[in-house]
Every structure is written in C-alpha cells, then in structure tokens.
C-alpha cells in the first residue's frame, strides 16, 4: 500500500507515537498535507498530545501512553484530516543575509567548475531560489530548505569536512542549510551568514518554523563583519 497526500498511512511507533505518512518519496503535495495536519493538530490537540515533528512527507505525533493510545490518536487525526481546508498553510517569509566573500565560501569555485558556471552565476542562481523550510534535523536549529535551482544542484561530497564554522551556507542537491554549530559536513560551502537561526530570544528561539519561506539577501564582506560583531 502506497500512502498519498489524501490517503495517508498511520504507523504505530513503540508505545508512544503515530507516524502519519502522506507519501513514499519527496513530493510537494505530500509535504503540504504534512503542514496542514501539523497546523490542525496544533490548533486542536487531542488529550495526551505531547509533540508533533513535521518532516518532508510525514508527521510524527508523540503522545502520553498513560493517557491515550495509538487508536484514539489516529481517530483524532482522521477527524482533523476530514475537516482540512483546501488552501496551502501560510508560512512567514524570513530573510537570511549571506556573504559570498571568497574567504567565507571555500567551495564556490568548485561548484562553479562542476556546474560550468562562473562564480557570479552560481551566486545569482543561489539568490534566485524559492526556498521553504521543509524540516529540521541533524542538530539544533539545522533547518533543511528546499528550493535550490537545478543548475547548481550537486551531489554531496564523497566525504565530510570537519570543523565547518557556524553560519556556513551549504547546498547539496535541492537543499540548502545555514549551520548553527561548528560541525562536520559533506555539503558545499558557498557562503556565510551573520543571521542567527538560534536567535537567543526566549519567545522565538528559532528563526524559522517549518513551512516558512526564506529569501537570501547578499551582503558585502564589510557588512558581514559589521553584522557579525
């Protein structure tokens, strides 16, 4: 049985969660269904609801097994699905500053070489993407953005590079990521951002919600240095 955006599959996980699957492969319609159910659940949580985790094509719903069970939670989710709206849930647009100074973009020249573009054309392509936050993962604040234009989509490197600075702007395949920690990565480092994803704000500690759209704005090295101070 293959799940679809209109006919999801509910998979029980251990004693405490249900995974709602809207597709078996990356698919915008499936992701839209994930966002819709996530928002409907946030607005109308069931008894014993703990947390929900949206990903590309599925939504994890964790519950308290002392209060409820898989069947009760699944029934609640089915009710939410039948009352769904037809519009795509609206995310907010977030701006991320990016500096492509050669010292901060160690892979820009290689990406240019492998795509047959000039470095300036790679930058233009990166800035032209329609980015949206599909999910978080890997580490706190690591938001996976879909929307990298096809002309600069490259497979990840064969092996990871260690000690990549926080704030690095990375691409691999259709995805883009702004790192929040010093971490190894096998993605291509094409710039550096001074925009904090971990905002340090108590009310809004993460810049993005899943479903937000993201727009990159180019800044000069001088502006980067001022913003990073």
């Amino acid at each position, binding site marked *: 049985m293959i799940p679809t955006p209109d006919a999801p599959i509910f998979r029980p996980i251990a004693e*405490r969660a249900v995974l709602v699957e809207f597709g078996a492969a990356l698919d915008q319609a499936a992701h839209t269904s994930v966002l819709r159910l996530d928002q409907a659940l946030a607005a109308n949580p069931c008894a014993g609801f703990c947390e929900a985790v*949206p990903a590309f094509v599925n939504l994890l719903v964790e519950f308290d097994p002392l209060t409820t069970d898989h069947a009760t939670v699944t029934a609640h989710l089915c009710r939410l699905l039948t009352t769904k709206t037809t519009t795509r849930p609206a995310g907010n647009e977030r701006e991320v500053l990016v500096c492509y100074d050669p010292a901060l973009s160690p892979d820009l020249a290689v990406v240019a070489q492998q795509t047959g573009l000039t470095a300036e054309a790679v930058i233009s392509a990166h800035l032209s993407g329609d980015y949206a936050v599909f999910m978080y*993962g890997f*580490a706190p604040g690591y938001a996976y953005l879909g929307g990298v234009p096809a002309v600069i989509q490259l497979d990840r490197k064969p092996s990871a590079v260690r000690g990549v600075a926080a704030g690095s702007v990375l691409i691999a395949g259709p995805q883009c990521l702004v790192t929040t920690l010093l971490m190894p990565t096998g993605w291509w480092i094409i710039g550096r951002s001074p925009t904090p994803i971990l905002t340090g704000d108590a009310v809004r500690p993460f810049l993005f919600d899943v479903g937000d759209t993201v727009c990159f704005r180019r800044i000069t090295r001088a502006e980067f240095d001022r913003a990073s101070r």
Partner: protein
Amino acid sequence: MTAATFRVAFAGPHVTVQDGGRPGLMRYGVPASGPMDRKSFALANVALGNPAHQTGIEVSLGGLSLQCLSGAVTLAIAGGGFIVQIGERKLGAWAVITICAGQTLTIRPGPWGSWTYLTFTGILQAKDWLGSQATHGSSGFGGGKIETGQTLTITEARVMENCEGPMPCPVWARPLHLLRCVLGPQDRYFAAETIAAFTGSRFELTDAFDRMGLRLRGPVLMPRAALAIPSEPILRGSVQISGDGVATVLLSDHQTTGGYPKIATVLSDDLDSFVQCRPGDVVAFRAILPEDAITATRLNRGRFTAFLDRMSGSG
C-alpha cells in the same frame, strides 16, 4: 542561605549537567536530552526530598572527583554499580551522604553500569537553554559538560542527616538485556528473514556508545534494496539500520530526523536500564504489539510512581 562550592578535581568525558530534559522542541532539531537513565536520576532526587527532575550531574564511565572547597551539603548517588568514596571511606554505589569543606568525593566505574547520578540538597548553579539545564552533548548547550578544574556552586545548600545512609538498588534499575520493542515504523523495508534475524539473534554492545546512540554488533540486517527514503522524524529508542546493515539504538541526544530505516523502536521504559549495559554485553530484542506495549508501560509506570511515592513518604 549558605552555599557549598566544589572544585572539579577530575571529570572524564561525557560527564554533564542534566535535569528532566527539554521535551517539545524536536520540530526545531532539538531532542529532549536529559539523563540517559531517567529512573535512577529521579530516585537520586527523590531520596533527598527534591522534585524528581531537579538539576544534577550525570557521571559516565570516565568518572568524577569533586573536592569540597567550602560549606557542606547532603548529596545522593544512584545509577550504575560505581565505586563511590569520600576520602578513603568507601560508600555503597547507592547512597546519601553529607560532604564538608576539605573532603573529596570520588566516583569511578565499578562492577556494573555505565552511568550514575549525583544530586544535591540545594541548587546546582548551571546555564539554562530553552527552559532546561539538560546538556545536549554535541552542542554543549544547556548546563554543559563538567570539566576538570571548574568550580561548581550549590546554593541553598542544606545538610539532611536524617536522609543519610545506603539506599537499596531496585532490581529494575539493574542492566536490562532483553529489550521490548515494537517493529517499525520502517520494518517493511526488510525481508521477513531479516526481521527474524533481528528478533532471533543476540547483539553485542560496541564501544560506539555515547549520549546520541549505541551501535550494536550482530547479524547484518540489510534492507531489501538500496534506499533513498526521505528523512523522517526519529524517537529515542529507534533502532536505526545504516546502509551497511548495522543496528544503532538512538538515545537521549539523538538526531531528530534521519533517512535510515528504523526496523523497530524500543519501549521508552526499557531504555533506562538498557543504557546501564556496557560494551561487550549481549542483548536481544523481543517484538510486541503496540497495544501490549501500552499495557506494559502503564503497569511499569504505575509501579515506578508508587515506588517514588513510598520513597518520598519515608524520606
């Protein structure tokens, strides 16, 4: 109010500040963290009359030595069968004791267990991140790693002589070698004989064991075909199978999403005593139905809560 201060004479790797954890933020890539063995941690707090989630220290097999510089405070130790000493005086692995200026507490690996917990009758001063002092290991966010040479301060430190003495270690706090799990959520990517190999074989714990996860050595559990499954959410207790067929059980500081198939998920209740196993120990998995997992969890959780209530009543 008085304070007690300590100098960290020695701290091994993976010794961290922990509290009840930081649930609710997995959608932002943040796992709950918190103690690897949540039950022993809660017992160590309740033994002192503290709330079960009050901030304490998780001690790894690396060990910990604290020299009390000033003041006095009563503390509790519960978890694995570690060797605990104040100066030359040996205590039991589970104990409540008062330490005074000039004395040194030393905790080092003993006959069994991988983690033990140190709690205080007072407030351990530690950094907060997103409403919790639990340390997220790979980022160091939260209370943070305990480092040799640093100073720890306990404010509102009290001495509670009436609590002092050895504590019994309940049998369910010992290492658990048979783990109950529910198959899935990606068991469909494995052939029936691979599932049978998973539930019918023994697995040895490797030394790739930290707060993120524990890699096992056992039969190769290859998925049916080369997979490109979209990354999906992960829970603590997920048994993830990497591309080369190796199983890893994900633990407190797990990644929140990932693209490897999860053949099964271990019951939360079994993880606390599973993490008290050591590299080289042998474990096996028993698959049960989701509804049976709920029944078992309610039974176990009820017993545990009753045990905590009796402890706080008698404390």
